[in-house]
């Protein structure tokens, strides 16, 4: 099957959607499918890109939905998207996050034929949908199949687009995590692992740090291993001086080292306060075999099978968190039991199973050859695209927009000529 996938966020910036697109593509290619990914790329040297990734141009940082999103949207990106669709001859087009103003949205406008969309965000309000909802509707209406990665994301789709979505979870490479070794040189002291941005409030590191004194009272030898980017000094200041040597800050860890970080602890702690749609990190820790203690958020409750595959604690409650962590650290048989049930749960999230489910969707929308056909360039945008495609060397969206506008203004006198001599109508068509 020839599959075209669009990723709205910059490829070389780490992120959940990018990782999802990368892993899904790799598994589809592993099954023998032809995959091409169109995505914004920042690094002008494209040699480091995997062979299946095509750059849609540099992204522009835009404040969006409370954080800075790096997006591409404009004439040059549209031109590239159309060319990619034309040359790709895809059997199915899979757009990720089509409501984010970037390549996925452009592809929705520019394509017709069998289209699948995956919705990742659980943010109840999408700025783009609020402002441009009506204008986006016709593009979103072309999508033949909608996938949501979590129950929360699915609810957003139903509320905003008035249509149901099939639930297919995020995938995890279970085998890669299952065989993980601890980081070299680790002591055998009971260790709690935290992974996530240390300065992002909703990841809840502050709650865990607040629980630390009580936890030390319960488990005197306990250590805290913190992995994730952010300002380390702020974290140190939040810990009483006497306990600072208990906290080890690893900074940003690579994807490859993530599994070793989990394997270096007896317990993985996810004290998140809100705003989690899925909990992929929990699944990764569970795949490693590290028992999880997590906030009782809806997404986490689902992943932890209502508490059967991990411990749920009240949100923002340092006392309860310390008690739960302490009890679990002192109970190795319970750790083993939780790890065993977690391993069962995690199988449903293995990429092998997730890829199969995504392929089921592809084949359902693309199998019926005559009515569905191939993915094609939507002729509706031809006029607009022809106006924008007259290249003049500028290679960013803003420059292209300005030059198009300038050309259009320069063409104004000629419009007057045409009304006088009808022959002139044909000279530029």
């Amino acid at each position: 099957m020839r599959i075209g996938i669009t990723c709205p966020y910059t490829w070389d910036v780490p992120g959940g959607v990018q990782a999802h697109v990368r892993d899904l593509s790799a598994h589809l290619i592993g099954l023998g499918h032809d995959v091409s990914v169109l995505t914004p790329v920042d690094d002008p040297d494209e040699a480091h890109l995997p062979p299946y990734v095509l750059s849609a141009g540099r992204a522009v940082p835009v404040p969006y939905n409370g954080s800075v999103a790096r997006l591409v949207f404009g004439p040059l990106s549209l031109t590239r998207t159309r060319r990619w669709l034309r040359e790709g001859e895809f059997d199915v087009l899979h757009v990720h996050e089509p409501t984010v103003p970037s390549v996925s949205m452009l592809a929705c406008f520019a394509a017709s034929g069998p289209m699948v969309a995956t919705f990742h965000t659980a943010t109840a309000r999408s700025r783009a949908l609020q402002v441009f909802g009506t204008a986006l509707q016709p593009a979103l209406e072309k999508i033949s199949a909608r996938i949501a990665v979590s129950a929360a994301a699915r609810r957003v789709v139903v509320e905003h687009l008035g249509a149901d979505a099939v639930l297919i979870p995020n995938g995890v490479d279970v085998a890669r995590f299952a065989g993980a070794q601890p980081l070299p040189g680790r002591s055998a002291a009971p260790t709690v692992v935290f992974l996530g941005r240390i300065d992002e409030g909703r990841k809840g590191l502050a709650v865990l740090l607040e629980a630390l004194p009580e936890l030390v009272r319960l488990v005197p030898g306990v250590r805290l291993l913190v992995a994730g980017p952010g300002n380390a000094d702020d974290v140190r200041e939040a810990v009483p001086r006497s306990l600072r040597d208990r906290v080890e800050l690893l900074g940003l860890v690579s994807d490859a080292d993530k599994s070793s970080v989990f394997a270096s602890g007896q317990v993985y702690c996810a004290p998140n306060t809100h705003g989690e749609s899925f909990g992929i990190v929990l699944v990764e820790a569970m795949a490693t075999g590290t028992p999880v203690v997590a906030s009782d958020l809806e997404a986490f409750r689902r992943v932890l099978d209502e508490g059967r595959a991990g411990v749920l604690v009240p949100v923002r409650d340092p006392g309860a968190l310390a008690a739960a962590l302490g009890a679990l650290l002192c109970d190795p048989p319970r750790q083993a039991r939780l790890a065993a049930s977690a391993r069962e749960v995690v199988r449903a999230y293995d990429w092998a199973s997730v890829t199969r489910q995504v392929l089921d969707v592809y084949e359902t929308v693309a199998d019926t050859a005559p009515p569905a056909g191939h993915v094609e360039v939507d002729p509706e945008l031809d006029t607009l695209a022809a106006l924008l495609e007259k290249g003049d060397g500028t290679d960013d969206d803003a420059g292209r927009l300005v030059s198009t506008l300038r050309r259009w203004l320069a063409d104004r006198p000629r419009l007057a000529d045409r009304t006088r001599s009808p022959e002139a109508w044909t000279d530029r068509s």
Partner: protein
Amino acid sequence: MLGLLVLAVVYVTWTAGRLDRLHARVDAAWAALDAQLVRRAAAARAVAATLPPGPVAETLDAAARAALEAGAEGREACENDLSRALRAALPLPPDSAELGELETATTRVGLARSFHNAAVGDTRAIRLRRIPRALRLAGHRALPQFFEIDTAMAQ
């Protein structure tokens, strides 16, 4: 005045085009659903043939045949009967090629039904608006209907 007229013409042609696409999507979604329903019924007959002779196998085979032969009118009812007959036949003998095909087909029927009904919902939402309805922008095409069947297959 002229501007308003131009706007109205643009709106009408654009909405008509939009409805055209939506109907094409419904057609494609129905073709997919139809194909998967036929596949499921055929798989159900193959599974029925592997069951020990008895009332369960006979009911399943009869329901599958009825589903294959049903016209547009009785299709929903026949497919629902087949879902029920399949559930009654549980647990099926495990790990046969026939059962694998039946499971795939059942999953696909569920997906195809959901995609079809989403397409129908999107189309109806536009068609039932006041202006498209008054101007008959959908032409002679019948209002697409939801296909409601129960595809749950508890294992």
